[in-house]
Every structure is written in structure tokens, then in C-alpha cells.
């Protein structure tokens, strides 16, 4: 109980430190010159108080219907906010349909989830895990929403934090504020201090192998950069000064059920939304930052290791020889034209792997700003 009182006190001190009124101007992005400031929704400006509230909520299982799941259950800091499982487990034990993505630099995503062109803000994305019932993740619904908010209101720490974060609202402790605060916290999770970033800034050299891997990555033989070429190593980026944003989705030849191009339901990518044949199996290219720790890989976690991913791209697709998903992905008729057999040598695979590991940002994995605040001891 002593520890509990201790961090209540810490919370009180924090309240004083970020005393009302908290202006949006108290937020500063600290970014290297090769990274643009992210777009922040006009109705949810960043502030230190809001990010701190969002961090509390992100790590708080009281936000789930069953009290046993928080955002952090599937988004672990030491895994760059992914969860090391192929599919994640929701509050009632159901598995998610797709692999939990890492959250670092999600502020710059143009779309969210694996193939959801309708979802273009973190705020709207959060409705999926919060309210979704296929599968249930956090399990919030019309019947328990008020009860869950009452749980939060009963903790003396929360009401002042909500008031500070949403000073313009008479009744700030509501689910919209929860969503906005967690979104602000997610936006604050920025990863731009990998060895690669420091190399770009002339602060640290890359090894010979890493440099050979980098040349392959950005070269026209491996062609990784076509889909992973932005500062965030993906190809859907929006930032504060964006005027036009492309949102490409790609079929990489992971499946070809019955030779007809099919992917298994409900993981048919953009096709699930558009119903257009050419969108079959088309998914968003994820950021490769911290990819060393975000396995298993692909939208369904069906490739266990980074080595397997490199083998997959080297071969230009995946053959599934038997079973219900049988089919030769190399020959998928909807496969992206950018995916072809490359036939990397063993040395090239090692070099590419070395470069991908240079994208790991150790500070992301350990920075106290993003740690579980409920675990902190005074």
C-alpha cells in the first residue's frame, strides 16, 4: 500500500507540474532533420498532460470489459509495441484475425490496420480494438461503457488528469477523451534513433555488411525501397505538410488458393473492403523500423522469423504444397509487379539482415517515457 500511495503522490506532483491551463504549445516534436513533423488532428492537439493521461490509459486493464486486457497486452514496449504472437488474444480469449502491428511512428501512418483505407486516424482506428466484437478485444459496448468510465472516475488520479488534458470541456471524463488521450500517447511513440538514423546524421558508422545490405535494400535488384523507402520504411506516409497522399496496398504472393489468386477469409486484404478482384491479398506495407523485434511477420504472422521473410522475398512468393490453403503464391495473378524472384546469395541475405537490424532503436525499447506508469516505484 505504501508504494500505491507513493505513486498517487507522484501523480499529484505531476498534476502540479503540468498545471492548468495546459496549452498545446507545451508539446515539442524532437525530430532529426530527415523526419518531417507528423499530422496531428486539429481537434486533438498534443499536450504533455494528454500524453501522460494516454499513457496511464494505454497501460490500464480497467479499460477492458473483463479487466484483464489493456492496449499494452498486445503492444509491448520491448517488442516495439507489437506482441511476438502470430495472432493476439482478446479479452474473452478470441484470437484477432491479423498480427498486432508495432506502434512506433504510427503518427505518420496514412491508413491503419493491415488493409483499411477507411481508417485514416489513430482516433478512428482505436474503435476497432475498443468496441470490436469480431473478435472481442477490449470488449467495450453500450452496456458497460458507463461502468468502465465509472471505474476510471473512481481512481483519484484520473479526474484531475482528464481536466488538465481536456481543459476546454466541462465533463472531460468520457470515452471520446479516452480515445483522444491514448491517440496522443501513441503519436508520442517516435522511433528515429536507430543506428541507421545516427549513420545518416554522421554520428555512427555502419559495418561493411550493413552497408552492403543497405545498398541492396535501396537498389534496383532487391527493390525493397519501392514499398519500404520512406523515412519510416513504408510507403504510406502522411505528415504535417502533406498535400496529397498515396495509399498503395500490395499482394506479395503469400497465398494462391486453388491457383485462383485467393487469400484465406477474412484476410483477403483490400478485397475485403472493395470487393475488386485486383485487390485480392493486397495489404499495407508496414514500417520496417525495429523489424528485428516485431516478429512473427506478415499480416497473419505466418512467417516466424526475419530470415524466413528474406527467403520469401528472395523466392518471390510462397508455395503451400498441401492443405486447405494449397497453392503457389509465386504465381498469384494479383501479385505486385515489384515482387519477383531475386535469388539472393547467402551472403546477400546476411547483409540484408544486418541492415534491417540496424533499424532497431534501442531507446524505443527502453525509454521510460513509454513505460508502464503503474509499475513505477517512487
Amino acid at each position, binding site marked *: 500500500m505504501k508504494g500505491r500511495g507513493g505513486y498517487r503522490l507522484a501523480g499529484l506532483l505531476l498534476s502540479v507540474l503540468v498545471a492548468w491551463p495546459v496549452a498545446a504549445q507545451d508539446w515539442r516534436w524532437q525530430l532529426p532533420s530527415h523526419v518531417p513533423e507528423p499530422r496531428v488532428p486539429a481537434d486533438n492537439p498534443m499536450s504533455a498532460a494528454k500524453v501522460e493521461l494516454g499513457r496511464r490509459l494505454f497501460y490500464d486493464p480497467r479499460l477492458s470489459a473483463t479487466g484483464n486486457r489493456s492496449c499494452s497486452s498486445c503492444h509491448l514496449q520491448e517488442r516495439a509495441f507489437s506482441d511476438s504472437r502470430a495472432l493476439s488474444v482478446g479479452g474473452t480469449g478470441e484470437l484477432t484475425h491479423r498480427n498486432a502491428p508495432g506502434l512506433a511512428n504510427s503518427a505518420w501512418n496514412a491508413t491503419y490496420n493491415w488493409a483499411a483505407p477507411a481508417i*485514416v486516424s489513430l482516433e478512428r482506428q482505436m474503435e476497432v480494438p475498443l468496441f470490436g466484437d469480431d473478435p472481442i478485444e477490449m470488449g467495450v*459496448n453500450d452496456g458497460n461503457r458507463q461502468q468502465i468510465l465509472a471505474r476510471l472516475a473512481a481512481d483519484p488520479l484520473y479526474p484531475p488528469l482528464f481536466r488538465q488534458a481536456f481543459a476546454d470541456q466541462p465533463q472531460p471524463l468520457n470515452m471520446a477523451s479516452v480515445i483522444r488521450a491514448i491517440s496522443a500517447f501513441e503519436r508520442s511513440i517516435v522511433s528515429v534513433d536507430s543506428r541507421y538514423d545516427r549513420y545518416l546524421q554522421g554520428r555512427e558508422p555502419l559495418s561493411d555488411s550493413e552497408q552492403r545490405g543497405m545498398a541492396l535494400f535501396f537498389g534496383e535488384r532487391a527493390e525493397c525501397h519501392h514499398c519500404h523507402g520512406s523515412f519510416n520504411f513504408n510507403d504510406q506516409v502522411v505528415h504535417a505538410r502533406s498535400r496529397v*497522399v498515396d495509399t498503395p496496398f500490395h499482394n506479395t504472393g503469400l497465398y494462391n488458393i486453388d491457383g485462383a489468386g485467393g487469400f484465406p477469409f477474412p484476410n483477403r486484404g483490400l478485397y475485403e473492403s*472493395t470487393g475488386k478482384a485486383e485487390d485480392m491479398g493486397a495489404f499495407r506495407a508496414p514500417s520496417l523500423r525495429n523489424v528485428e523485434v516485431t516478429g512473427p511477420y506478415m499480416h497473419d504472422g505466418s512467417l516466424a522469423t526475419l530470415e524466413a521473410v528474406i527467403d520469401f522475398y528472395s523466392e518471390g512468393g510462397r508455395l503451400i504444397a498441401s492443405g486447405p490453403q494449397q497453392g503457389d503464391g509465386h504465381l498469384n495473378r494479383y501479385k505486385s509487379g515489384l515482387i519477383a524472384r531475386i535469388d539472393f546469395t547467402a551472403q546477400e541475405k546476411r547483409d540484408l539482415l544486418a541492415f534491417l537490424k540496424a533499424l532497431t532503436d534501442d531507446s524505443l525499447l527502453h525509454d521510460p517515457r513509454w513505460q508502464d506508469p503503474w509499475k513505477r516505484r517512487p
Partner: protein
Amino acid sequence: MGYLTSGLALIALASLAGCAAKEPVPAAEQAVTVDFALVAGAQPVNCGQPFGPLGRDRKRLALHDARFYVQDVALIDTAGQRVPLRLDINDWQDAQVALLDFEDGSGHCAGGTPGINTQVSGQVPPGHYRGLSLTLGVPEALNHSSTELQGAPLDLAAMGWSWQAGRKFIKLEVDPVGGVTKADGAKASTWYLHLGATGCSGNPVTGETVACQRANRIPLTLPDFDPGRQRVVLDLAALFQDSTLGQDRGAALGCMSGPSDPECVTLFARLGLDLNSGLPLQPGQSPAFAARAKP
């Protein structure tokens, strides 16, 4: 022949009862209430009693959920003009959209909301009316608002459709006796109809969802409709006429508006929608909806 004239005249008369002796002053507006019902042929449908048998496979069913939104509610006057109903504002309707809710959270409907709503109410200018028109759906400008920011009746998480950053226009779920057998042989308990706009995409620059490929809204015109004596029914016997409710041949369980979902192929025709375009097959007509005499 204006069916509505008599009913509305009665309402107008009632409102003037206090000054019956004086010269009648034309009322600025007339109150109109349109009743809705969920039925299976002649049977009422609610969370309490199983109903049916329905569908090609003649399944007995228990109701699991039944709610839908209507927009653009209008009366049709004797000249054939649509006159918008100015909706009363309450927990079931805002100025543009009303929620009809036939589940009360009991029985197989557990997890729903306790209240039900079977009426749309509003005002029209005095006149002679003979028909009704409305659209099953939520207006585009409101469809992509957040359930957590929008007021009633668009504040229900259950009617949210987060994968399209929109809403379910119709949420109709039934539990067939004996369950639903999926294509892979597995069993499930519930057959779902979730109708909503699909193929929606947002603009990452503004952070707003802006356009959908398939509107999937159902305009309904009942040219001869007397709200005093008739009600609008969603007839599940007509809706499920060509469906096989004990079986699912692929994609979502039942029909969640997927353009290639085999269950949607039969069901969309009964809703009066073209599955590929999301447009009405015959504007104003939906085999599942009809005007019926009040009991």
C-alpha cells in the same frame, strides 16, 4: 384520394379542441407518427418467442438483434411531392436520422439495449398527404462520425462499423435452431445481416473518411400509406425467402455486405439492392419492406 387527410385533420382538430367555438386557425404544423414493426409473415417478432420456420431450409429462429436507421423521412402529398418530416428530437431521432429498435436485451438478444422504439415522429406543414417515403440508412455526412462524439441515436457502439469508419444501417441477427454450419463444417450460433456502406476510403491529409464505393442505402416509397391505419413492416419471411439460414457457404457468417459473400447474393436482392454497385435495383422498392394494416 388522400388517406392521410382524415388522420391529420383529427390531430389538428384535437389540438384546437380548447378553442372549438372560435374560427379555426390553421395549425403551423401537423404531428405525424409512423409506426414500424418487425414480423415474420403474420407472426410478430421479438426477443421473447421463437418464430418461423423461415428460409429455404425452413428454420425456426430466435431473434438476436434487430435495429435499423432511417433517413430522409417524408410524406408524399396528393400532388406527388415529397414533404420532409421535421423529426422530433429525442433519444431515438435527431434532425436527420431515426433509429428503429426491436430488441430489448432479453433472451437471445442479451447484450442489447433495454429500450425498444417502433415509431418515427415529426411534423409536416398542413396538407393532404397520401404516401410515405424514407431511406434505410444514415446520411453520408453523419455516417462517418464517431459514436463517441455524435449524439443520440448515433451514439451506439453496437451500430458502429469501425472497419468502414461508419455505421451499420441495418443490424439484424437471428439464431437458427440447430445453429449455422459453416463452409468448413464448424458450427456457429448466429446468422448476421449487417448492412452498411462499403469500400469506404479516407483522406489521410484531412483525417476524414470521405467516400464509399457502395452506398447500400435502400430508398423506400409507399405511394399509398395511411399512418393512422398502417405501419411499415420489415417482414423477415420476405427477407429470408431465398436464404438458407442453417448454413453459411463462405465469407462472413450470414451477410455483412461483402460484395462476393454468397449469402449476400440472395439477401441483397430481397433488400432491393444491387450487390455490386450498392444501388437500388428498383428505386423505392424493397421486397423485405411493406405497408401493412395495423393490428
